[in-house]
């Protein structure tokens, strides 16, 4: 029997993580806000039942949330990242292949048992993840990735499925495909979706059965693969090792507009520090650095500017990257403009090992080694004692433009000072 493709994802992942590590939130409505406490990006099932909408700006619904006693949290990426790793490493021993697709979802391939029924396995996995991590998951099972995604959607949409749906175990899959709007299909973008609708193709079943050459003319091989996947022919492989990153970007909105050149420099500097940390963790060096800043696109006289520099020698040294970035900042700045967002992009990334020696190498090897040791030391201190323990003066001491995260929960799984309390009373 052919292998099954499975999509496993966590329900309301951010809100579920908050509930998993804070017993006071169990059974209570919880919402998590996006960066800068902007919009609702995750709702616990209790909040969903109250009719709290996704994507709503916080300031518009703050009163409604308070009235219902909804717990509001800022995005706690340290917690979600750690819980994501725990989730993925719990799935690994169960399956033949695993592709971690995003922070809270993974594709898996596994053989079907002789009975053909993966139900017992899936139910056991769900209860294990629930008990071990406190996270609810949904499991969609099908012969291909596109259909697994569709099955997962069905598993979550109707509580009668109890978070589990196997498309192959249905007598007739067609009604299920018919109930899936074409735009909801994985791999159907806005343009292809519109094109389908214009041709009267409204759901997954109709897309599956349409003339292949017509689809090919519009969407090429990608469209044909999509159709084959819908017919149950698996042609999108699992990507087990993610390709090495080509770029690393750190950008954020400010809590208030910035006009001063000095403050813009501090903001860019702090993103460079973060990006350099990421680079070292990825064991890469950057050959090119781009900084950018913009004003609000909703204000009149919108202004946006980027500046880029090629580094003489690829580097992951914060000092080197800071110096390169700070030289570019004046070219981004215009007096009296109210900047709301800035960022840094590290490009032309090369593996650490590939450092070609250069005639213009800025430092003698011995000094170079000491710089490496310094970076390792700083990263170690910041990991151990928390981000910001060792800071770069260029970032400013107590910036008040920094991202608003007023309702941030603790880094309950990654910092010793933030551990949850076990009461002995």
């Amino acid at each position, binding site marked *: 029997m052919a292998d099954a493709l499975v999509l496993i994802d966590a329900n309301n992942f951010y809100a579920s993580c908050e509930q998993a*590590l804070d*017993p*006071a*939130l*169990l059974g209570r409505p919880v919402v998590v806000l996006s960066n800068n406490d902007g919009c609702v990006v995750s709702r616990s099932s209790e909040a969903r039942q109250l009719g709290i909408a996704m994507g709503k700006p916080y300031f518009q619904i703050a009163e409604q949330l308070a009235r219902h006693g909804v717990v509001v949290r800022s995005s706690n990426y340290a917690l979600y990242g750690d819980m994501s*790793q*725990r989730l993925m*490493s*719990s799935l690994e021993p169960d399956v033949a292949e695993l592709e971690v697709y995003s922070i809270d979802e993974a594709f898996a391939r596994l053989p079907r048992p002789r009975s053909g029924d993966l139900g017992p396995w899936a139910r056991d996995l769900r209860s*294990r993840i629930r*008990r*071990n*991590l406190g996270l609810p998951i949904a499991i969609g099972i099908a012969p291909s990735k596109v259909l697994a995604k569709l099955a997962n959607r069905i598993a979550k949409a109707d509580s009668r499925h109890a978070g589990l749906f196997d498309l192959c175990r249905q007598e007739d899959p067609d009604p299920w495909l018919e109930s899936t709007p074409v735009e909801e299909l994985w791999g159907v973008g806005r343009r292809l979706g519109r094109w389908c609708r214009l041709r009267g193709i409204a759901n997954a079943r109709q897309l599956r059965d349409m003339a292949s050459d017509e689809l090919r003319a519009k969407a090429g091989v990608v469209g044909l693969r999509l159709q084959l996947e819908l017919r149950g022919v698996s042609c999108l492989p699992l990507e087990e090792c993610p390709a090495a990153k080509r770029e690393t970007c750190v950008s954020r909105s400010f809590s208030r507009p910035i006009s001063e050149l000095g403050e813009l420099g501090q903001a860019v500097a702090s993103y460079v520090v973060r990006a350099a940390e990421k680079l070292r963790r990825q064991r890469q060096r950057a050959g090119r650095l781009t900084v950018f800043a913009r004003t609000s696109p909703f204000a009149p006289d919108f202004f946006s*500017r*980027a*500046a*880029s*520099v*090629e*580094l*003489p020698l690829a580097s992951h*040294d914060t*000092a*080197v990257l*800071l*110096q*390169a970035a700070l*030289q*570019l900042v004046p*070219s981004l700045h215009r007096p009296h403009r109210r900047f709301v967002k800035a960022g840094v992009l590290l490009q032309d990334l090369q593996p650490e090992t590939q450092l070609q020696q250069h005639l*213009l190498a*800025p*430092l003698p090897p011995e000094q170079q080694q*000491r*710089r490496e*040791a*310094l970076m*390792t*030391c*700083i990263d*170690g*201190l910041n990991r151990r*004692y*928390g981000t*910001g*323990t*060792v*800071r*770069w*003066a*260029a970032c400013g001491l107590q910036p008040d433009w920094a991202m608003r995260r007023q309702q941030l929960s603790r880094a309950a*799984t990654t910092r*010793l000072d933030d*551990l*949850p*309390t*076990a*009461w*002995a*009373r």
Partner: protein
Amino acid sequence: MAGVSHSAAPLPPPLAAPALVLLGAAQGPVAWPRRPLPLAAESVAAGFPSPADDYIDVGIDLNDTLIRHPSSTFFLRVSGDSMTGAGIQHGDLLVVDRSLEARPGQIVVAVLDGAFTLKRLVRHRGRLRLEAANSAYPPLELYQCGDVQIWGVAIHVIHSLGRHG
């Protein structure tokens, strides 16, 4: 070669590092990390080969020793004195494995009134109850409190013997 777009000035080679500021927990100047010493070095220039060469171990990692299921193991900080009789003091670090089935006799973390509570799970006259390890605290009969969830089983407690180093 170096090329600059947008900004006119070419990039000079990096000079001194921008200044570092040290805040929070780490005190004193940043020290250069010491080279880690290998447990035993293979290359001995002269003399007999070390008789220990064949017995080199990788060292002791407390993570490996104390934690069997890393993805379901969580750390909690103990607050209070109700478990002193079980050797668990206020301020101790508790290692909790959520994947284990709680059995009578074990120290467990239960969710009680929205808080993590540390107790011993005990079978008493055929019924399960949660007991403190300190006679000042009365036991809690499980059948009497409707909504108790056993969150995890405490597998180790790490007690620090004061500040040192």
